[in-house]
């Protein structure tokens, strides 16, 4: 396919040549069923060519060496999501964390819990939680009576994220740093829950002091069950 020539305003009497047709009129967005169909039809793509693929619903341009999605790489790439109902534990799907991303972001929303409890997190590899005492944690926040609170610990069997009651279940954003590497996995969270029966912010620090390479995580209440949903994203490295 010819390279685009830019924009031309035709006037009465102009002769429409093949070069004009290919260089101006044919330079719109070409619609194909798939990338394979495009490859068959466009054997010599030129820089600036545009296409729309019906199977993926994506608009792409030819950079001169490859077809590239318009809009670039999103900073947060959606990985998976899930819902849970009256569960005693929620494990992200195996291989949620891969080498595709270094750091991950989990939005975890509990809409109901069966009893007051403390919410914890453990790293998970190949379907098994790491429940040994390799975790350090610290939680702090402010309460609705204007006082603050903090609690923490070392060598625990989980990272504590927050306390909650049936009236104010936990809702929070959890960032996991390097869960897939052999280095320690660090966790930071911003959320809300309950402390001493009062609504409170819950900001947590966590560290899994282990070389274990986690491909998922389990979030669980200390007692009872939880209902809600979550979304997992990867932070793009470029």
């Amino acid at each position, binding site marked *: 396919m010819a390279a685009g020539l830019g924009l031309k305003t035709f006037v009465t009497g102009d002769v429409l040549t093949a070069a004009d047709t290919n260089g101006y009129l044919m330079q719109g967005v070409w619609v194909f069923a798939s990338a394979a169909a495009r490859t068959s039809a466009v054997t010599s793509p030129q820089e600036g060519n545009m296409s729309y693929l019906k199977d993926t619903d994506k608009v792409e341009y030819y950079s001169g060496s490859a077809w590239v999605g318009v809009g670039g790489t999103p900073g947060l790439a959606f990985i998976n999501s899930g819902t849970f109902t009256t569960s005693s*534990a929620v494990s992200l799907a195996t291989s949620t964390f891969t080498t595709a991303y270094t750091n991950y972001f989990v939005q975890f929303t509990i809409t109901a819990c069966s009893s007051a409890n403390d919410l914890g997190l453990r790293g998970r590899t190949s379907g098994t939680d790491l429940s040994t005492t390799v975790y350090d944690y610290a939680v702090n926040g402010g309460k609705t009576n204007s006082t603050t609170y903090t609690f923490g610990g070392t060598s625990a069997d989980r990272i504590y994220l927050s306390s909650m009651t049936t009236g104010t279940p936990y809702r929070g954003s959890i960032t996991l740093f390097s869960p897939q590497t052999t280095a320690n996995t660090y966790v930071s969270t911003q959320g809300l829950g309950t402390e001493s029966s009062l609504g409170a912010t819950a900001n947590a620090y966590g560290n899994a002091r282990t070389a274990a390479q986690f491909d998922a995580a389990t979030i669980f209440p200390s007692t009872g069950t939880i209902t809600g949903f979550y979304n997992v994203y990867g932070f793009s490295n470029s």
Partner: protein
Amino acid sequence: MEKLFIQDGDVKREFNEAEYAQYAIDQAENKKQADEAKAKAAAKAALLSKLGITADEAALLLA
């Protein structure tokens, strides 16, 4: 023992043997921590009673 369920990715299933075992360990630890907190609160209340002051008054002393 009551049946417990885990949301494992897209599948909700009953705990397996290892998960039930870990749950029992976790519950024992929870009870231990709750008992310790309860004992601490009772000791604090006993001390306040012995001193004849309230918790707020004790806080004032420590401020």
